[in-house]
């Protein structure tokens, strides 16, 4: 699946998007955050406070308990500050 990062999540991870293949036990958005956080220093920094991270699956906001099984694109970003 494709993962996208925005704002300071993107800066800390060090890339805007990538393709990932998480193991089968990674089933929810929260699981995926935990798995990503183990991938290196930048990821650990980006995901150090999971409760502030917002997620979207296929362009729709989701909660951390959402299942990722059928996702084509998952995005992680900080709380929004537009308008």
């Amino acid at each position, binding site marked *: 699946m494709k993962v*996208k990062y*925005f*704002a*300071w999540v993107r800066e800390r991870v060090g890339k805007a998007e990538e393709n990932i293949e998480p193991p089968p036990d990674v089933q929810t958005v929260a699981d995926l955050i935990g798995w990503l956080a183990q991938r290196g220093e930048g990821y650990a920094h980006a995901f150090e406070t999971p409760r502030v991270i917002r997620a*979207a699956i296929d*362009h*729709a*906001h989701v909660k951390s308990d959402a299942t990722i099984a059928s996702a084509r694109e998952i*995005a992680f*970003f*900080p*709380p*929004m*500050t*537009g*308008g």
Partner: protein
Amino acid sequence: MTAQVSIRIQEADFDIAREIAALTGGRTDIGAVVSFSGICRGREGGEAISALTLEHYPGMAEAEIARHAAAAMARWPLTGLTVIHRVGRIAPGENIVLVLTASQHRQAAFQAAEFLMDYLKASAPFWKREEGADRTGWVDARAHDDEAAARWTKS
């Protein structure tokens, strides 16, 4: 006549008078247009701001605005609405966002404009980065913005 909905995300500035004319031109069923513009401030909390840079999530930003535009159309008798959100570097005094709502009567237009702005701030995927005199950083979200959006789901 059908309602006219225009949603745009662009780097270029917009002309408010031209946007209002596009929404109302050739129609005689509109009695009220409300216009809200968000403008880049030159100071934030006592600190001078030299510019903002707006990042967005292409695809989702349009989808999220369209979803709330549809909700506004369903909730109020609007004849049309326009939402324009700029991205990229924006200097103090420049426009950031425009919401126009048109209706036969003012109440629907006022309420729908406020509803759209509250949801735009709370749930449309845009992020502001501030450039100050001696530091740059991402703007923190305000709990107040989530509360403003949440009040539309009450009562």
